[in-house]
């Protein structure tokens, strides 16, 4: 159906900002490429766990930023500010609750996602670095859990941190130095809380974001694996000469493989 001149004009006007941006940045093209690039046809629901982990992290980052507007990282006022957020500030309970429970979910999802990539053998050539950045992300995620646990400055928070710091102290040779660095002096003192806060909201998340960037770059560059049990897994070994030829051939191949399966 031919467009009316008016429609074409509107369309052009609407697309103008995109063209304008593309001409100057090239980003529109990249985004299009990113969105419309192919992934294996048979990707599985379990392969959404990485995206789910990313979502959980974004929830943490967002709620965390806003909690920082009301939280006071000082032993004399931290506890009261947490009470204030939970009981007084409008919707404070929700944002704090989301941050608190999101943290657990984030960790669970990281483990599930790791279990998925393990199950799929997705850490093998050429995705070794996906796995390694992943493990570092896991460790940093747990470090977020450890540093964040102190912030409410309640009994659980304080004593879990005492034990955590002292666990570090038992490492041979360097242990006591690590512990003393973490607590910022000979004892858990006034500066320990703000140090943990800075680690929790700036240092470690910065590292996590950078590594997520790298992790995602690798995922996009290398592509995700097909489920290993899939008869049409991308990259499956084939007999000499058999080459996939577009979607039609793919369908035929599917049917043939299916029949072979039945026959054998």
């Amino acid at each position, binding site marked *: 159906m031919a467009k009316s001149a008016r429609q074409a004009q509107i369309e052009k006007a609407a697309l103008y900002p995109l063209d304008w941006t593309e001409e100057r940045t090239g980003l529109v093209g990249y985004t299009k490429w990113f969105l419309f690039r192919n992934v294996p046809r048979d990707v599985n629901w379990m392969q959404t766990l990485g995206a789910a982990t990313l979502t959980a992290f974004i929830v943490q980052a967002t709620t965390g930023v806003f909690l920082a507007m009301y939280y006071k990282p000082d032993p004399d006022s931290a506890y009261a500010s947490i009470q204030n957020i939970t009981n007084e500030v409008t919707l404070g309970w929700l944002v704090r609750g989301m941050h608190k429970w999101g943290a657990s979910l984030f960790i669970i999802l990281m483990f599930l996602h790791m279990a998925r990539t393990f199950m799929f053998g997705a850490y093998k050539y050429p995705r070794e670095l996906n796995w390694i950045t992943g493990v570092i992300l896991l460790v940093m995620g747990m470090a977020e859990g450890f540093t964040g646990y102190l912030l409410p400055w309640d009994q659980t928070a304080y004593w879990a941190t005492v034990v955590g710091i*002292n666990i570090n102290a038992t490492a041979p040779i360097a242990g006591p130095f690590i512990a*003393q660095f973490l607590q910022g002096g000979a004892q858990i003192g*006034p500066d320990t809380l703000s140090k943990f806060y800075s680690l929790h909201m700036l240092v470690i998340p910065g590292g996590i974001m950078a590594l997520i960037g790298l992790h995602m770059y690798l995922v996009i560059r290398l592509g995700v694996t097909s489920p290993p049990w899939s008869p049409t897994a991308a990259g499956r070994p084939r007999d000499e000469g058999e080459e996939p030829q577009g979607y039609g051939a793919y369908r035929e191949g599917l049917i043939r493989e299916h029949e072979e399966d039945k026959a054998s």
Partner: protein
Amino acid sequence: MSDGTDNHDQAPGSSLWPIGFAIGIACILVGLVISWPAAVLGAAVTIVFGVLWIRDAARSHAPVDSAPAHALVDGTPSEAQLAAEEQHLETYGRAGFLTLATIGLGGVIGAGVVLPSLGFAVLPSFTGEGIETNPVDLGPISNFPEGTFVITSFTGSKRQGDVSRRTAYIRNNGLSAEKEPSFTIIYSRCVHLGCPIQPNGPAFKDQAKTYKDVTLTPVKPAGFGCPCHGGAYDTEGNRTAGPPVRSLDRYAFSVADGNLILGDHFSVGTVAGTAADAVMTRYPVAYPGVHVDGIERFLYPLPVPGAGA
């Protein structure tokens, strides 16, 4: 191959600028120790000679006559080109100098930003800043009945406030053989991983007293237990069960005007004897889980600066 303008005759080496530069650096270092003006002077000398040196060096390294335009065969450079490239590097041309200078300057910039920040982040933990030297007054000795433990909670540092609340289990042992007052003062943190130990026995909350911000509750413990991983201690703080690696930490004490004054905090390997006759070696405070005696102490050979008294 490369018969360009650059050859070894013109290589730097005759220049005296590096010497001035080095003198400047030396001035900075000496100045840091002796006086600030000297350091500033050194910095100025360094910069001047540095600039001169760079200018000189840059001038004496005119661009190398590069190898003929790369005619790539099959996308791989030919033998001849590889040899040329090698030579190109060897002749250390202007490009090579600029590469090194960029890396060097980048390094200096990086160091200038990172080192102070890193030092700021790390060093204060090890200077002993914030360690309180004012002794804590626990009140009249009469608040400590002979032979019983008193759960004594106090504020370790007025300046730090509630973060420095600490608890000690204090037993008045009466007079020692030398007719000196004797107290057993056991710190309330488990020497496995630092959990708050609990007295194993009934506390007499109805006999609790306070002195300023010190709270005193008599208790009759058969020993101490840790609520975390099952550490257990006897009344001298020796381990009786579980993972603790040494005996409980203690405090020294003194008596002034009839008041008990808390002294230095120290760590203990094991305690021999009991009460006033207890004998032990005092070690500098060690982290929980760190062995102070026995063969395992070699796992922790380095003393931690600023770890407190």
